[in-house]
């Protein structure tokens, strides 16, 4: 009963927020926060062991009765929607205010509440038809959020690409849900593990949800959309929206039977996404594109966990599958939290410097210490370094991988390469974030704009601090989170219901806490020792060179050049180099660009061919009546030939 009330309240309040967004900013903020708080409460109630919420209405939409259901898997994702939805709403107040963006701020607020509501509905719908409707509404509201700054042509292009890719995925989902409805005779969704004939549908779902999840090579829309959207939108897109694709995969691989090869394929795709996402991220020189590719990488890491989970479930519900699946679920939360934090940080930088080019930044820690510190925190967390939360989830996935490899089962053939890939991914992520944090915040300012940057206000700082606090909680209290992880784990595979936390999880939490304390202690000791001995400030010692300038610093491009060279076969960097020539050289420059390989080298040429073919066909349509009669006769003749000769 309370759940009914909570849900009705959340939906009504969010609808009111979406309507009031354009004119009543204060009311909108209060309403959105109230709505997300209600969603969070409902999610925690379910994750805390509360009963599954199942609600059927007599009201029919599209000929189907409304049926909503909140089980642990939905609740797991709903919690993330609520947290990032609330944090982003607060952040937007300062980041995208009316006085700076009179034209789009109101629209942005309205769509923000809409996307939070629609994602919530996607998670709740237990009817295939309504799921598709909510999915489409969610995809469209994301489009309107991405194109808030629609006067920029890049933004429009990014929005268009997103819309096209998203609908290609939706097409797959149409096929998935209608085939499912045709085979079961109903649009109702629920556990149907005893229908082995449904298993092949998994491949259709993998495509449809894979596009949304940004799985390599279906990620083509993701970098430009996340880079060109306003930063709070990038945060919810990267932190939450792409997780909806993952939700779909987890949801339907739990409800429906999966084909035998599912685990192998998901694991392989995950490993490929992780390594290549990491390599692409390292190569980027646009701060937000770097973060976007890093989402591809982290989706890959999560898919590795899901793949091991699927393999474990297929091989007699082994313990290693359970641990890895738990890691994947926890990584969903972790990535949602620290990726939103990083996008908020990037937004704070973008807000004051007006550029996303890392080569125009540098030395920002002096004027923006809060942002710099929080971005560094996020960088350590996302590189999966102890003692923060990214490490906990990757550690769980590693445990699953290592145990699976040691089991000497047949699966080791795919587990071993995936483990090595995960290790390489970790090193690539570390390199990418050392680059991002250092080039933006450390060293000397490369431009005037960077020198005169200013810190963001408390409305932007607050959400970042809140997300960092959530990350810290998971990092140190992972064992307290375990009972919550267990709920979706049991909902996904009933054989894994209950059971203890992997024994060392409590130990790991204690070690992480001790490590954090030791780190803090060591920093204090070293600082105070340096203070007592005396600290003198001097110019950076550049090997005796007396007049170093900011332009002599290592740039982001040079930082990643070495590793980019190793991945040149897939990154295909385009270089334009003009050497300085003659005794009085005039101009010399070096421009390097990393294309989105799949989009520009595969999909681009294919669509060019389609365009040529289409324009050739269009030339045959000149409006001459005799031509059309000829086409008609030719068509009839062909059909007649088919009938006559087909029967022979």
């Amino acid at each position, binding site marked *: 009963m309370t759940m009914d009330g909570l849900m009705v309240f959340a939906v009504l309040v969010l609808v009111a927020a979406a309507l009031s967004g354009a004119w009543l900013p204060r009311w909108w903020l209060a309403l959105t926060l109230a709505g997300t708080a209600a969603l969070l409460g409902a999610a925690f109630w379910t994750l805390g062991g509360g009963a599954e919420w199942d609600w059927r209405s007599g009201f029919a939409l599209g000929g189907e009765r409304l049926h909503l259901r909140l089980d642990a898997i939905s609740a797991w994702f709903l919690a993330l929607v609520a947290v990032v939805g609330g944090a982003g709403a607060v952040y937007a107040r300062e980041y995208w205010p009316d006085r700076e963006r009179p034209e789009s701020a109101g629209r942005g607020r309205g769509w923000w509440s809409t996307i939070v509501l629609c994602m919530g509905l996607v998670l709740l719908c237990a009817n295939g038809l309504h799921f598709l409707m909510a999915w489409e509404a969610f995809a469209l509201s994301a489009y309107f959020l991405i194109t808030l700054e629609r006067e920029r042509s890049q933004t429009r292009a990014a929005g268009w690409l997103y819309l096209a890719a998203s609908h290609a995925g939706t097409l797959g989902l149409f096929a998935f849900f209608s085939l499912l409805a045709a085979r079961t005779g109903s649009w109702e969704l629920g556990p149907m593990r005893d229908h082995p004939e449904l298993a092949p549908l998994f491949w259709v779902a993998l495509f449809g949800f894979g596009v949304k999840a940004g799985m390599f090579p279906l990620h083509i829309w993701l970098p430009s959309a996340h880079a060109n959207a306003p930063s709070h939108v990038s945060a919810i897109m990267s932190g939450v929206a792409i997780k909806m694709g993952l939700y779909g995969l987890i949801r339907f691989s739990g409800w429906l039977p999966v084909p035998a090869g599912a685990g192998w394929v998901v694991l392989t795709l995950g490993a490929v996404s992780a390594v290549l996402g990491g390599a692409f991220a390292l190569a980027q020189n646009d701060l937000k594109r770097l973060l976007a590719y890093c989402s591809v990488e982290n989706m890959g890491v999560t898919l590795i966990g899901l793949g091991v989970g699927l393999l474990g479930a297929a091989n007699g519900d082994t313990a290693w599958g359970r641990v890895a699946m738990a890691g994947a679920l926890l990584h969903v939360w972790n990535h949602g939290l620290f990726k939103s934090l990083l996008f908020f940080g990037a937004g704070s930088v973008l807000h004051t410097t007006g550029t996303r080019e890392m080569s125009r930044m540098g030395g920002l820690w*002096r004027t923006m210490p809060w942002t710099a510190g929080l971005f*560094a925190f996020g960088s*350590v967390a996302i590189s*999966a*370094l*102890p003692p923060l939360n990214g*490490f906990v989830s990757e*550690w769980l996935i*590693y*445990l699953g991988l*290592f*145990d699976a*490899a*040691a089991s000497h089962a047949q699966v080791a053939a795919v587990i071993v390469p995936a483990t*090595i890939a995960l*290790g*390489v991914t*970790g*090193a690539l992520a*570390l*390199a990418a974030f*050392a680059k991002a*944090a*250092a*080039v933006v*915040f*450390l*060293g*000397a300012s490369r431009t005037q704009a960077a020198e005169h940057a200013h810190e963001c206000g408390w409305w932007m700082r607050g959400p970042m601090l809140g997300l960092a606090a959530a990350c810290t909680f998971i990092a140190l209290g992972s064992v307290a989170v375990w009972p919550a992880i267990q709920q979706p784990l049991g909902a996904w595979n009933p054989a894994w219901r209950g059971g203890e936390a*992997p024994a*060392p999880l409590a*130990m790991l939490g204690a*070690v992480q806490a001790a*490590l954090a304390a*030791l*780190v803090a202690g*060591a*920093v204090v000791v*070293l*600082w105070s*020792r*340096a203070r007592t*001995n*005396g*600290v*003198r*400030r*001097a110019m*950076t*010692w550049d*090997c005796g060179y007396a007049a*170093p300038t900011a332009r002599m*610093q*290592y740039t982001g491009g*040079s*930082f*990643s*050049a070495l*590793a980019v060279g*190793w991945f040149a076969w897939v990154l295909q960097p385009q270089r334009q180099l003009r050497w300085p020539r003659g005794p009085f050289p005039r101009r010399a420059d070096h421009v390097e660009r990393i294309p989105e390989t799949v989009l520009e080298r595969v999909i681009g040429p294919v669509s060019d061919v389609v365009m040529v073919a289409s324009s050739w066909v269009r030339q045959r349509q000149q409006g001459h009546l005799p031509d059309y009669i000829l086409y008609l006769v030719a068509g009839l003749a062909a059909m007649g030939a088919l009938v006559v000769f087909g029967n022979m």
Partner: protein
Amino acid sequence: MTSILEFIARLAVWLLLAPLLPGIINKVKAWVAGRRGPPVLQLYYDLARLWRKGVVLSTLASPGFIAGPAVAWVAVLAAAMLLPLGPLGASLSFRGDVILLIYLLALARFCTAWAALETGSAFEGMGAAREVSYAVLAEAAVITAVLTLSMQSGSLVLSAMLAPSAGTGAVLLAVGLFIVLLAENCRVPFDDPNTHLELTMIHEVMVLDHSGPPFAAVLHGAAMKLLLFSILLVQAVLPVGKLPAAAAAGALVAGVLGVTVGIGFVESLLARAAFRRVPLLLTTAFLLCLFALLVAWKGGAA
């Protein structure tokens, strides 16, 4: 009470013995070259002096410049405490501790690179870029080596993984891990610890701007890392855990000394490899570990 005393004794072993290794290496190098060389305890004198010295900070450096070496030092020390010491075992042991160890070393790497990039110096940027890039290859080799050990022993606890010898693939694993040791500890042929100032440096160039107590932390951390890798290598290859306590302790000490002297010889007899050769060497290390893994895999299946 005894456990606390034991913990302190263990800490003392790591903190006090680590700076001995670079001294031994330098003695070996001097002996091969026919020089007298610096005293074995030279690093201790250096550390004591640096700890009392003042600090010169770059005008560009943030507080992270001093925090970096502190965090890196703690990370290496914590990784060391996870490593079992032959018959003594580890001070802390749990399933998956080996992954924590690898990622603690990664944390140290992140902090060192961070501090290097604080100064805005092209040299240090270069070093940091190389460090994090080559780590991609070194990480692949290390993960493969760990996977080998875990498959061999069927365990994910360091003390159990390191107890038996690496079996048939031991030689492959030994050579692979030795190459990784040289790369991770900035020794010849990857790096030249004799100088900080060459265009082809990797690790050493990252610490150009450190001075005083933070520099002491950097040097001490590097010595601990060398000891850590030596002990890891020796225990991965020798069946230390299967021997009686005294023999195991003897084997461990002899093994670490052997590795140290070996580094000294490598450094005396080899020139630093051409820069473009570095990825090739690391890939070789990875392949060696991979072959060891295949041997362990087939061995376990039989």
